[in-house]
Every structure is written in C-alpha cells, then in structure tokens.
C-alpha cells in the first residue's frame, strides 16, 4: 500500500465517522427513528488486497469510534467486525472467473453496478440485522425488528449507491 493510499484511507476513516455521528445520527426515519448507516462504506471500499487481519482491526476501531459518539458501547463495533470477517469470503464468492483486476477497487466504476449491489447489500443487511438484534436483546418484537432492518438498509443502500456516482466515481 503506497503512502498516498494510506493517507487517503485514514482521511476517509475520520470523515466517515464525523459524517455519521454528526449528520446521519441526527436523521431519524419512520416512527421507530431508524438511522441510516453510511460509515460502513469504509469497510466496503477497502482495497481488495488489504490484509484480512487489518480489515478486522480497522472495522473494530471504526465501530468503536461510532459507539463512543452515539452511546451504544460495543453495538457498532460487534456488527462491523462481523461484516469485516465475512467480507473476504463474500469477495471470493462474487469474484469473476479471472479474478479481480489488479489495480481495481470494489466500486461500481470498476466492477459494475450488478456486482456492487450484490456485494454491498449483503454487507449492509448482515450489519443491520446484527445491530438491531444485539440492541434489542428481545426488547422489540420480530416484525418491528424486521421493519427497522429493512428501512435502515434500504436508505443506507440508496446513500451508498449515490456516493458511488458522486464522491467515489473512480
């Protein structure tokens, strides 16, 4: 990883945490106050060749930072570590027959919309299911939980796809 890529990743980490906690955490959708999660874009966008253990550690610190600011100690950390663990297997499963092109990134521009949607929807859904299950611990009923996961994932996906056509075009 060159210095340039490293610096860009650190910057993206900080910016996504700030945007999440100070903007998106204040957006409450539906009567259940579902919050869109955009910070997991960080895990989604990490380069293919990032060592897996680094992805795990980064995901933990990312989730933990979000937790500190939103008083949900451990919730986001646990969910982020889970998707970081699943990510390599998912990438393998979705890989084209010839493998990922060297120098390409997990983005719509390089991999196409179809690939990107499959990839990011899986991660967002797993993250949200884990988050709301852990948060409620049986506090919510099943249908409310499902509804929250659905709305949160839908809005987050819309934002993530928009980011692909605006900020992360290349």
């Amino acid at each position, binding site marked *: 990883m060159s210095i340039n890529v490293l610096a860009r990743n650190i910057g993206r980490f900080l910016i996504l945490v*700030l945007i999440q*906690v*100070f903007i998106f955490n*204040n957006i*409450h959708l539906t009567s*259940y*106050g*579902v*919050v869109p999660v955009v910070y997991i874009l960080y895990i989604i966008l990490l380069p293919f060749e990032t060592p*897996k*253990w680094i992805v*795990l*550690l980064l*995901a*933990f610190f990312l*989730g*933990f930072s979000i*937790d*500190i*600011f*939103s*008083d*949900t*100690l*451990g*919730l986001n*950390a*646990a969910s982020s*570590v*889970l998707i970081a*663990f699943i990510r390599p297997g998912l990438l393998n499963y979705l890989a084209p027959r010839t493998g990922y092109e060297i120098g390409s990134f997990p983005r719509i521009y390089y991999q196409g919309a179809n690939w990107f949607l499959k990839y990011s929807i899986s991660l967002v859904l797993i993250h949200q299911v884990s988050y709301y299950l*852990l*948060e*409620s*611990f049986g*506090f*919510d009923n099943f249908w*409310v939980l499902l509804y929250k996961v659905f709305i949160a994932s839908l809005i987050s996906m819309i934002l993530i796809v928009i980011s692909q056509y605006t900020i992360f075009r290349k």
Partner: protein
Amino acid sequence: MKTLINVIIRFHLVILFLILEIISISMVVSDDLEKKKVVFSSANSISGYFNKKINTWLAYFTLAQENEVLRNENLALRNRLNKLQALSKNSERDTFLIDSVKYSYLSATVVNNSIYKAQNFITIDKGKADGIKIDCGVIGTDGVVGVVVAVSEHYALVVSLLNSRFGLSAKIKNSNHFGSLYWTKNDYRYATLEEVPNHVKISKGDSIVTSGFSAIFPAGIPIGTIEDFRTNVSNNFYEIDVKLSTDFKSLYYVYVIDNTMRDELLLLENSVSNEY
C-alpha cells in the same frame, strides 16, 4: 507448543475475529450505568464540543417554541410564588421551606439526545467545573428527564428515563401509593409503573410523581399521567401505562438538581446497613 503455534497461525483470523467480537459483545452486555466511563461516551470533550456547535445552529429553528415554553413556566412559577408569599404571611413558622433548601438547581442545555434506541442517553453542556456530580437528578420544564451517570470537565452524560436499564421510584399523587417506573415499551411517550398493589383505587388520568425516597429527586416532581392499567392476577400488582409529561423529542433546556445533603443521607444509610 509447536502445534499450538501452528494452530494459532493457521486460525489467526478466526481467533482475532472471536477476540474482537467477545470484546465488543461484553461491552454491550456489561454496559452498566454505575460503571459508565465518560471518555467512552458522548459526554467526552471532543463529542461534547462538536455537538454543542451543531446544537447552537439547530437551536435557532426552535427558538420561538422554546420561548413559549419558558414563558409558560415563568407564569406557573410566578403563580406559585404568589401563593407561597400569601402562605408565609399567614403562618409564623416557615418549616415548609426545609425540604426545598436541601436541593440546589442548575440550568443546562441538551446538546445530544436520543429517544429511539433501547438505551437512550442525553448529553448536557454542564460538567464537573459547573458543580455537576454523578447521581444528580435532571428535570425538564414538564417533569423528570433522567439522572447524571458520568461527568467530564464541561459536559455530563445523563441516563434518560427512556432507558431499559433505568428504574425510578414513583408514586400516585392522590393516594401516595408508590411503585417502580420502568421504560418497557420502546416508545418515547410511555413508561410502565409496576409494583402498585391492586387493592388501591386508581383511575385514568391520575398524576404520577416522584416519591422522594431516593436522594436524587425531591418528592412531587411530575412524571406523567395514567393512560391505562391492567391487573396482574398472578402477583396482585397493577401494570400501569404512564404517559410521560416530558416531551423527550423536543428537549432543550433542563435543570440539574443537586441534593446538598446526599452525602449525609448516604453516610447514614450505609452506617445502618453495615451494622445490621
């Protein structure tokens, strides 16, 4: 030993994953209100600073509404003052003041608030430097809001009434029967009052106020009104739905109550519990 190292190398990802998950989930499970660390909360100085900045902008949008609320509160307080002045003229003794002298009040502004989670917390812009301590009670214009659980230099973290791990001693205003109030519904407008025996006569619309049994809140601070109730046959207690009087959705100004005699009270209680 060699095989152990080989196993660790081979499964290092799974091991790392499990360690991180165990750390995270144990944080979720062991997130006790008593052991809350202020550094790991939204009341830390970085978070507090940014939240305060954002909130000062957002506050402009609700200024008119806030003014209205404060004007109404002023009016109510003025009326009470009149009544009390009349009372004190008529009576020689002023013993009724003793209870209120025990408590001192501080005003604060809410800089971060959540109402939709299972564990909700509020951050206020006053901290250690302003004399706020852990276990101070927090009330709004309309009633109880929560209790301070952690303080940093300039901010404090308040556990909201809307937190499934928080319970509050409450009583029915008319009959003085008391019970415990919990947040069980995941709806920011309602809480549940339990442990009121079902021989007590209650009706919809009765006021629920603080009992004053804890050293946190003075007695008689409004919590809400009875919306509905059921009798639980198995344990002879009511299950009462309480409509909260505080509108947590538009909380902005709050008052922090410090019981100046808390230390003395706790000392007394502890000395008794140590002896028996």
